[in-house]
């Protein structure tokens, strides 16, 4: 570049930059679906506490609500990564099931043997590895073989659930061997709120930082925005997408372990139907199903909104089976909202 013009341009650019940045920050905040969902969550909680001060506005209910959505929230973070790339993962509920059974079975063997292999020190990594394997399976089929994410992960949904049923021999696992108590204390424990809630908070902050400040995060968005362009400009598309699927399954595995720690038992139906709630949380939080848009905080508050409404319905004496109608309705509403916003943009 010619040296005589560079400094002047640079200074213009910098002042431009700072002016615009402030504008987009506030603009972004107000255009952000996550913000409005947060407002909705607080509003519902406030109204419910006024209406049912004795049952709702209690510490115990707060503890229950946050614990209940923490598992879905953790899974929604992984789902966010996959959906940002323009994919989808329907297998998370089944991955949760098979991971729960794997961890349960290993620790169960510690009932009759005090081998180190049957402690949670080994069972938990084995569960996480199971999750990674499931994600690798999805990722390879989507990126290397070129199958559609929908069909691939629908297949994994079925395979992983069957594996859970077969491994468990259709029995409930509730005796967790000699390291069971320590496992429950750590993974099912609490400090003001449940440990799974702390984990969700830490993971949300961590994932938000990854999305916004790392090359990997930037590449997730680029792939969702224009996969072909990303490929042409040298983004390692295959690797990044593969990692997104692995991360998603890993989150499901983490959620399974936390859920196991709290429930104290593993059944092969663990996580059945969760995929819908996880995807709903993600899109309600503002992640675009078409890819290229979304965030960690959205996944968190999306999960919170669903649970707050579910909890509210139960307290208000509404049949809890209405929950499915609300979750389904919310998915459709969120996608409709996205379509309206998309039109405004064009």
């Amino acid at each position, binding site marked *: 570049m010619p040296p005589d*013009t560079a400094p002047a341009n*640079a200074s213009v650019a910098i002042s431009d930059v700072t002016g615009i940045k402030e504008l987009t920050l506030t603009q972004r905040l107000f255009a952000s679906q996550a913000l409005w969902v947060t407002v909705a969550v607080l509003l519902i909680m406030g109204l419910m506490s006024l209406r049912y001060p004795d049952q709702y506005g209690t510490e115990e209910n707060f503890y229950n609500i946050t614990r209940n959505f923490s598992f879905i929230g953790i899974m929604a973070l992984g789902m966010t990564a996959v959906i940002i790339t323009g994919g989808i993962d329907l297998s998370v509920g089944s991955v949760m099931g098979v991971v729960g059974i794997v961890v349960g079975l290993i620790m169960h063997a510690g009932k009759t043997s005090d081998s180190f292999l049957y402690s949670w020190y080994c069972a938990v990594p084995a569960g996480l590895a199971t999750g990674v394997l499931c994600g690798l399976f999805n990722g390879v089929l989507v990126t290397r073989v070129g199958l559609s994410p929908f069909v691939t992960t629908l297949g994994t949904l079925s395979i992983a659930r069957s594996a859970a049923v077969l491994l468990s021999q259709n029995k409930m696992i509730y005796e967790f061997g000699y390291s069971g108590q320590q496992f429950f204390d750590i993974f099912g424990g609490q400090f003001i709120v449940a440990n799974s809630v702390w984990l969700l908070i830490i993971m949300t902050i961590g994932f938000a930082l990854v999305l916004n400040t790392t090359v990997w995060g930037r590449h997730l*968005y680029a792939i969702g925005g224009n996969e072909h362009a990303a490929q042409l400009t040298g983004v390692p598309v295959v690797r990044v997408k593969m990692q997104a699927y692995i991360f998603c399954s890993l989150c499901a595995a983490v959620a399974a372990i936390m859920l196991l720690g709290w429930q104290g038992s593993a059944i092969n139906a663990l996580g059945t139907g969760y995929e819908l709630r996880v995807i709903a949380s993600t899109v309600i939080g503002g992640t675009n199903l078409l890819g290229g848009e979304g965030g960690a905080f959205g996944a968190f508050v999306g999960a919170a909104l669903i649970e707050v409404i579910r909890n509210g319905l139960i307290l208000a004496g509404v049949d809890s089976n209405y929950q499915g109608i609300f979750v389904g309705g919310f998915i459709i509403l969120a996608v409709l909202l996205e379509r309206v916003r998309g039109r405004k943009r064009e």
Partner: protein
Amino acid sequence: MSVLQLRNISKSFGAIRALTDVNLTLEPGEVLGLMGDNGAGKSTLVKIMAGNFPPTTGDIMLEDGPVVFHQPVEARRKGIEIVYQDLALCNNLSAAANVFLGREIKRRFGPFNILDFRAMYEQAGQLFGELKSETRPHDLVRRMSGGQRQAVAISRTRLSNPKVVLLDEPTAAISVRQVAEVLDLIRRLRDQGICVVLISHRMPDVFSVCDRVFVLRRGRKVAEKPIADSSPEEVTGLITGAIHAA
């Protein structure tokens, strides 16, 4: 010694034969105008040079011998930059993010490698300024005009020190003033000894910046000659087929 040479390049897409037996030589520091009707094979030819896909038959020679590109990144490493006709931009990212896509500037933050936003915004701002474009580094590409998008795509080629810059219709969607800036940029690239291939439909562009003109018709070369020895009338005739070869 030529910078890049294509020897007997043919390219078929299934039953479609896009290029037949094309030979092309790029000399150091020259600007080559690549012209031809829609579907003549211009984009296919530059995409082969940029490593998008290999030719069906034929060879690509660089200064240090024959090369086979499997990916655009490999051509870029050899000093070949390209601005695609469709620009290859991500609408959901900012202008600066698009410029640095795949070549992000990073900095250490404790144990982590994070994006150096400030460096990228500043450098992108400078590059846009150099093009006299009002493109602002923070703006989303989705909200940009044709000229601003073009500036983003062209700025990408300025990140490295390329030997060859391929521009696929860089002036198709932009204002008269911006066309002048792009032509200026091409001249500056040439002055730095960089080879430029300019695909354009605009006769005045080609005749004002190019040293030589190369005409394709239906995938075949029909002319390759110094611009001084040609005229807009002749080139128009070559493109349409009114003149068979020159």
